[in-house]
């Protein structure tokens, strides 16, 4: 244990916080972008009928399980100098990593938000109609009723983005001080045999995930019925 604390004291805090900050920035920005795109898409799929709607939902569900390394490879091919988007010079930049996180989190947030919206009791929308809501107000009412399910989707999206390694490693390149995030650092330190640093980074990653999820859960609990939990005698 003493050795462990001795080891901790040797870690460069500036470098460590740089990695933590970049991880949060890449995951947070990716999640934010994914949520901004996913919510209108989920609402459209849940509330409007149009040809091909079921196909789009099926595609979303399929992409929930998109292997990050496959996405990383595709993005690499797109963003590399010889690729169609190579002129943008995005490969091995945090922007490319954010793009990867967005694409990975988007189907998860969209599919779970869609599921939350379609599962809102239809009587809620009818009630909104009877109270004089316009079509737009009805839609907002239904979406608001689904808000706790939507938060679950965002939580799942954050989990995916925060724990992601394959795609950000391929498109970010794990460049020290520029594109090195916690997951890529853990992989690197493990390769180098620095298991202690890998474990410390892993614990920080878990702690961050816990903090974000606690905040989102707190939000969710506000909408939970007192009767939703089993009584001690049940």
């Amino acid at each position: 244990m003493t050795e462990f604390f001795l080891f901790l004291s040797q870690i460069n805090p500036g470098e460590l916080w740089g990695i933590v900050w970049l991880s949060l920035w890449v995951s947070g920005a990716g999640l934010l972008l994914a949520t901004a795109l996913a919510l209108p898409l989920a609402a459209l799929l849940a509330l409007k009928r149009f040809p091909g709607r079921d196909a789009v939902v099926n595609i979303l569900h399929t992409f929930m399980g998109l292997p990050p390394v496959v996405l990383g490879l595709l993005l690499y091919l797109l963003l590399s100098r010889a690729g169609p988007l190579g002129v943008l010079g995005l490969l091995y930049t945090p922007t490319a990593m954010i793009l990867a996180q967005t694409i990975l989190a988007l189907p998860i947030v969209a599919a779970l938000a869609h599921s939350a919206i379609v599962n809102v009791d239809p009587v809620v929308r009818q009630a909104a109609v009877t109270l004089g809501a316009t079509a737009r107000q009805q839609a907002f009412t239904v979406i608001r009723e689904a808000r706790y399910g939507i938060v679950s989707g965002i939580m799942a999206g954050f989990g995916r983005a925060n724990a992601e390694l394959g795609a950000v490693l391929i498109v970010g390149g794990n460049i020290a001080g520029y594109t090195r995030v916690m997951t890529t650092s853990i992989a690197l330190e493990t390769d180098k045999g620095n298991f202690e640093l890998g474990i410390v980074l892993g614990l920080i990653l878990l702690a961050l995930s816990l903090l974000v999820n606690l905040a989102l859960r707190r939000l969710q609990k506000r909408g939970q019925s007192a009767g939703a939990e089993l009584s001690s005698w049940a």
Partner: protein
Amino acid sequence: MGLRIEVTKVAKAYNGNPVLRDCSYNFAPGLTYALQGPNGSGKSTLLRFLALLEAPDTGSVDYLENSTVLPINLELRRRFTLVLPRPGIFNTTVFNNVAYGLKIRGVKSGEIEARVDTILETVGLSHKRSQRALDLSSGETKRLGLARAMVLAPEILFLDEPTANIDPLNTDIIEEIILKMKAGGQTTILLITHDPAQAERLGDRLLLMKEGKLVPG
């Protein structure tokens, strides 16, 4: 003059089974109609047509004012409201539920506060103002549904089984509220009930849904 509803030869069938057949009736303003009939006879279907939630297969539902048929638009829809058997309570506070209809009409917050508080007092839910509405009992939920409609001061109020599946105390409270509205003379009320005594207590006109048609009860 007030709104008059003219139902003309309305028909509706579900899966080939006719529920309403050439159903016609004129609802005059300011009266309370109590509609009875067995389950599945088409009472709720008719109410949904009147509230413009659905359209009949054939026939028409017209709203008239000074003998002029009004166009069906948001303005007309906001002059009446329907309280569904399951009122569709929103997952928010009791206050926000009652305030909903006013907020979407752009009423100012000060006026919303005052009107909602008055209605909550009327339905006996003032003490639950900040409570989560989905945690209310079934009787309180029915009262909340009624409050949410009453706060809008509708010219016509459709009530689909306002006292079904609740205890006698809550039934008495709701009947009292309906009687007060009726005494005000400003609102046309059309309610569905399975209780003949309640229909007698509340209704100016008793109606029976029989073989898909409305007949005097």
